[in-house]
């Protein structure tokens, strides 16, 4: 269901000429997860979107284009709040990519029981 809501929001953004101001009036409780920081002015990207595109990342035309912003990157992660707690999927922000670091978009994660 989350995916459905998300898809609807995406479609609405792409198909209209909404500005930042009108976007905030949309009566939805879930904001899309922007990849770039909110301060960057985002105009709707009119790229070809496959019918089942749910993710913000698919908006970017080419995967070989580096991110414009490497600070305050918004994403989601499975967070464990305390020992023995469940994994919970929640939005997080990554502060920056330092000179000795690399930003990776995860495709697969194995679960190894040694942890």
């Amino acid at each position: 269901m989350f995916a459905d809501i998300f898809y609807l929001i995406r479609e609405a953004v792409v198909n209209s000429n909404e500005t930042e101001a009108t976007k905030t009036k949309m009566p939805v409780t879930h904001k899309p997860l922007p990849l770039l920081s909110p301060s960057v002015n985002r105009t709707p990207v009119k790229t070809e979107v496959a019918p089942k595109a749910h993710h913000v990342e698919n908006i970017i035309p080419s995967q070989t284009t580096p991110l414009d912003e490497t600070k305050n990157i918004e994403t989601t992660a499975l967070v464990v709040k305390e020992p023995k707690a469940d994994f919970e999927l929640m939005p997080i922000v990554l502060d920056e990519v330092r000179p000795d670091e690399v930003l990776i978009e995860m495709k697969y994660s194995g679960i190894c029981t040694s942890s």
Partner: protein
Amino acid sequence: MVEFPAIFGHEGAGIVRSIGSNVKDKSLKVGDAVLLSFTTCGTCKPCKTQHPAFCHKHAVVNQSAVRMSDGSTPARLKNSNKSVRSQYFGQSSFSKMSVVNEKCVVKCPNPDSMAVYAPIGCGFQTGAGTILNVLKPEVDDSVVIFGLGSVGLAALMAAVQRNVGKIIAVDIVEERLQLAKELGATHTINSRQGGNVPGAIKGVTGGGANFAVDCTGITKVIEDMVESVGPQGTAALVGVPPANARVKIDPLSFLLENKKFVGVIEGDSNPRELIPQLVKLHEAGKFPIDKLCKTYPVAKLQDAIHDMHSGKVSDILFQWYNTLLLTDRRPLSRLSTGVRMVIAPGVRLQIGYVEDEYTGAISDSQSCKYSSRIL
């Protein structure tokens, strides 16, 4: 060692989206497919002599889940700005995007098979590395492998690749023993069926094995392993035991038989060398790790759950935001942190922690309920 809240995950596979200005590997490009492995301190003697797996600070550097330089963590919760530890093993791969230490990054030689290669960063590398780098059994040797999870099966495949004469696989789940036979084990022992496991091994090998690997971390198994190696044999401890556990050995026979007992982290692997080597073996058909992975579409989640409980399926490898669920063949019950898992956004899969008793029952009394939840 890690503090909470934290993001785990140490077998990641993904695409490079941004590269820090001082990253030493200049051949890395945005858009490259990479596999993620462990990180190291970089300054101790093993780090400097091509044995990064033996870094003296391996536990601290990988488990603390913070940047080594200043103890900071890249992540914070969006809603509360609360700090979340997020460089577990330098990577914290249970995150859609992660800021990863450059040392963890290994280029993936075959991006199309990235799903199958994700566990190379830890599990497969550990098992195969122990055989290929540390034990190096020969054709006329005998090897016993205790515990047939991804680590044990990777060790098995590596031993088969070296044409080792006798490869004895020990486990309690019949299906895994069958798989071991398919992969090339010469003998299998189901230790749940009681009986004297070291005795059986000594019978098969004529006095004791030359090499043995424990991939379970269970104290009784470790003791059996030391017991089952023969004169001048080496017992390698690879599985992670619980903290404060103790094992007992018979020191007199240990001495009289000139045995060795070694701990091996991550198969003494240098990821940038071993990972491409294992991928090449896989492409040559000699490291069939796809046999350990099974794909389930989300519609068949119920089947996946059922297979997990019956021991057919084990490690879960999940694909971010897609509807595929890949699984491996080791019981999920070995999770030592006792966590329950959210497998895919919107679907919550709860599998309780199951106590592992070597002799005993894998309790499948844990309920497995799942419900959809709006996130």
